[in-house]
């Protein structure tokens, strides 16, 4: 029942906003709704016993194996926590950095949250696909109506790009469903028991991977990302990078590793190569950006490259590290894009040229920003540190040279983040009229900083969720013929 509530709470709240249109209270209602969802997520976490849970199981269209099955395992629960924790902050961004009509914006965000919960709860490939595509619609309208320059062309490109991946995924689902014994079923449990022949897995891997590679994005499929992130309103960018990108990583675990494990193993060196190359490439570009938001967009792409590479190393370090890092990266992205929004709101532009020397005028803000930068470059005691450490460990076990590429990434990451900090905050005071962080910004950033410091101190809170599933995954690999 709780799982259905997760999908329904944001959906109904969004509907309520659309029908009642309470312009003044819209954000409040949305915030309450996300907090309610968060409470449900915490309840699920509290009652979690380490075994996969199936909350609801109903037939829908039996002829195609389409069933309404909701549930979660450890990794799914982690994704639910991610979505549940971040959305109150994403909604909260609207208080200080409002865009457009609060009723519509918040309703769209809530619909998006509902679909995201659906993605992470779905235990049927078909249902997964439906939610996967539904997440796109609210974001599409959010970008189309409240995006920045060239919003129409960029939004349509983004939409088509992701739909291309979606259709490839749909094709794969249709194909594997028809391979299951009669009566066909698209449940993940049934699909995971399929042992497809190697030559099928070889190509099926790519039709599935395409969808997730575009979502994250991974190197050759990334060209929609920088422009979309830059143009989108802050809340849209947060949803895209902090939560929606994670659908890609999650999809790789539930689809590729479960259904085409041998194909995934066969292509893993290719994927790691592409991902690491993309990560380095994005890191170098991030360094050269003159636009603050674009720089963060490229840094997000760089992180995704590293996470995807570590995921394909096929060892406990790499996979748990990536899963842990999904959460850390989500928190980090919300912080970073909030800061970008707050700074550019004051200076009137995303351009580094319009910033510089802000520290003298806004010392408190600079301090908050410094904490976030520390997290971004994975200083010890921040949340990102255990994740990155695990991922490098995984890469190291896989191959020394990939680990070397990983070390390069650490250096580059530190360079572009600190360089950005320098260009925004440090330098001579240029007498730009800005105000320091106010109460609202403190209420936003301080809890997030607390979260990432605490999880950095006690990473086991998150890691214990994924330990079991990752071991299970690895055992099923070793038992492969």
């Amino acid at each position: 029942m709780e799982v259905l509530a997760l999908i329904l709470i944001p959906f109904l709240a969004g509907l309520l906003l659309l029908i009642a249109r309470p312009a003044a209270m819209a954000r409040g209602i949305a915030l309450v709704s996300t907090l309610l969802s968060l409470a449900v997520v915490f309840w699920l976490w509290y009652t979690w016993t380490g075994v996969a849970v199936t909350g609801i199981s109903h037939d829908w269209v039996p002829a195609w194996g389409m069933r309404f099955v909701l549930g979660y395992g450890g990794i799914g629960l982690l994704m639910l926590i991610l979505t549940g924790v971040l959305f109150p902050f994403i909604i909260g961004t609207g208080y200080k950095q409002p865009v457009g009509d609060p009723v519509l914006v918040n309703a769209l965000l809530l619909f998006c949250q509902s679909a995201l919960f659906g993605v992470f709860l779905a235990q049927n490939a078909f249902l997964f696909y439906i939610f996967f595509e539904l997440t796109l619609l609210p974001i599409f309208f959010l970008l189309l109506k409240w995006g920045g320059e060239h919003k129409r062309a960029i939004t349509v490109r983004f939409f088509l790009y992701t739909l291309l991946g979606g259709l490839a995924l749909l094709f794969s689902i249709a194909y594997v469903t028809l391979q299951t014994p009669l009566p066909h079923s698209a449940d993940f449990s049934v699909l995971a028991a399929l042992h497809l022949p190697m030559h099928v897995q070889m190509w099926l891997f790519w039709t599935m991977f395409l969808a997730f590679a575009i979502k994250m994005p991974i190197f050759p499929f990334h060209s929609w990302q920088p422009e979309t992130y830059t143009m989108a309103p802050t809340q849209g960018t947060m949803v895209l990078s902090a939560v929606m990108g994670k659908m890609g990583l999650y999809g790789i675990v539930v689809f590729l590793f479960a259904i085409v494990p041998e194909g995934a193993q066969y292509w893993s060196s290719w994927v790691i190569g592409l991902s690491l190359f993309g990560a380095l490439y994005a890191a170098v570009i991030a360094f050269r950006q003159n636009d603050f938001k674009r720089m963060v967009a490229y840094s997000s792409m760089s992180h995704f490259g590293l996470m995807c590479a570590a995921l394909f190393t096929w060892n406990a370090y790499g996979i748990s590290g990536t899963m842990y890092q999904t959460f850390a990266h989500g928190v980090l992205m919300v912080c970073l894009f909030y800061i970008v929004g707050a700074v550019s709101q004051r200076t009137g532009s995303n351009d580094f040229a319009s910033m510089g020397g802000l520290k003298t005028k806004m010392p408190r803000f600079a301090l908050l920003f410094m904490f976030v930068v520390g997290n971004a470059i994975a200083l010890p005691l921040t949340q990102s540190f255990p994740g990155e450490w695990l991922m490098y460990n995984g890469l190291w076990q896989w191959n020394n040279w990939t680990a070397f590429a990983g070390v390069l990434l650490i250096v580059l990451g530190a360079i572009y983040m600190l360089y950005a900090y320098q260009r925004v905050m440090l330098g001579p005071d240029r007498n730009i009229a800005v105000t320091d962080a106010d109460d609202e910004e403190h209420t936003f950033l301080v809890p997030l900083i607390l979260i990432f410091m605490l999880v950095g101190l006690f990473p086991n809170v998150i890691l214990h969720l994924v330990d079991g599933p990752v071991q299970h995954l690895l055992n099923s690999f070793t038992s492969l013929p």
Partner: protein
Amino acid sequence: MSALILISVLGVLVLYLGLFAKKSWLAPVGILGLLGAIALFYTGWHINHPLLGGMVVFDRFSIGFNIGMAIITVLIFLFGPDYYARKEHHVAEQYALMLFALVGGFILTSYSSLLMLFLGIEILSIPLYILAGAKKHSLRSNEASFKYFLLGAFSTAFLLMGIALLYGITGSFHLDALAAHMTQSGGSDLMLNFGLFFVVTGLAFKVGAVPFHFWVPDVYQGSPTLVMTFMATVVKMAGFAAFFRFIDMTGMPDALARIMVLLTIATLLVGNVIALKQTNFKRLMAYSSVSHSGFLLLALLSDHGLEAGHGMAVGHTLLYYTFTYSLATIGLLILFTIAKRANNGAEHNNIFQGLFAAKPWLALCALAMFLSLAGIPLTAGFVAKYQVFLLAIGAGWLKVMLFGVLMALLGIYYYIMVVREVFVRPAHTVTFVVSPLNWLVISLCAVGVLVLGVWPALI
């Protein structure tokens, strides 16, 4: 059978009503008659015996299609009073002609003799030739009528040639005889293959498959919108039902399957690619109609290669696809008429601008219907396409199907471009005037598309 007679008599009755200038009675009487026909079909659900010396069979397939076509016609008639509000003369004839065309459609879904196939196509087409030219003083309408007539006559010649060849081989018009001959000869007979080829050509003309699609955009654009709606929906349903009956009976020998693959690929490619650049909404819908024909052809193609007994799955998919496509098309074309009036007769895609600001509910309806045509999940269009893809994979047409998936992506692009307009604020204020009946039909179509998308088992 009684439904066939009912609709024919109904057409005559409507003509008489026109004679007595009872314009306001036309649509209600027509709708009542159609509802009666639906009830008659429904009660005949389990009766499955051949009629007219075995020339017509009302089996489940044909009854399903007939009910579907009748429902769609009811929706179109509901649109009628508003559409013809400013027209005083010859309204009755238009309703009557549509009813007569519908009778042709009924025959097309249920023929089991090639003779009835020919009769059905003619009964369906001749009223349409007249209807396409219903705007007597419009050059485009005249052009549409003339073009449709010439090309239609041309395709009929092909069809007749094919029927003659098949008759020459089997000595019978019956599909059963043809099927028996096919199994006997193994499909290697050259004359037989030519016969099949010509019949398929004739049918491909009717459903607007490439390379026989050239009439579609011009005729759709030139015809009055209501007639275009009828063509894009009922005529397409009837055409594909006829196509399926023929293909399913012949069992599709390999030579024919090869031709069908070419037709499918060409239709998918041309329909979708040309639609990308259309700025006139009626032409866009025309090319979208061609592209949907491509997906339907893919379903037909899957009849070749599916194990025996799965033929009905193809029939069911065709019905589901054409019906839901029709729902979305009707709603959108009514919206188009409303927007066209609001913009002083312009037909450009951007006439939808400001719809969301002025009529949010209708804009949401438009969104649902566009998404259905594009095939986004939770709409009926998605389920329809998915069924087609499943069939194609099951029948082993993997590469054709992958091509179809790519083309579906292009399709999403041009629908999204129009959706974008719906949510744009126009430069000047536009007032959309919506009659309650139109509002009802649009809402029905949009809700129908969503409900059928969530519970596909309803059809």
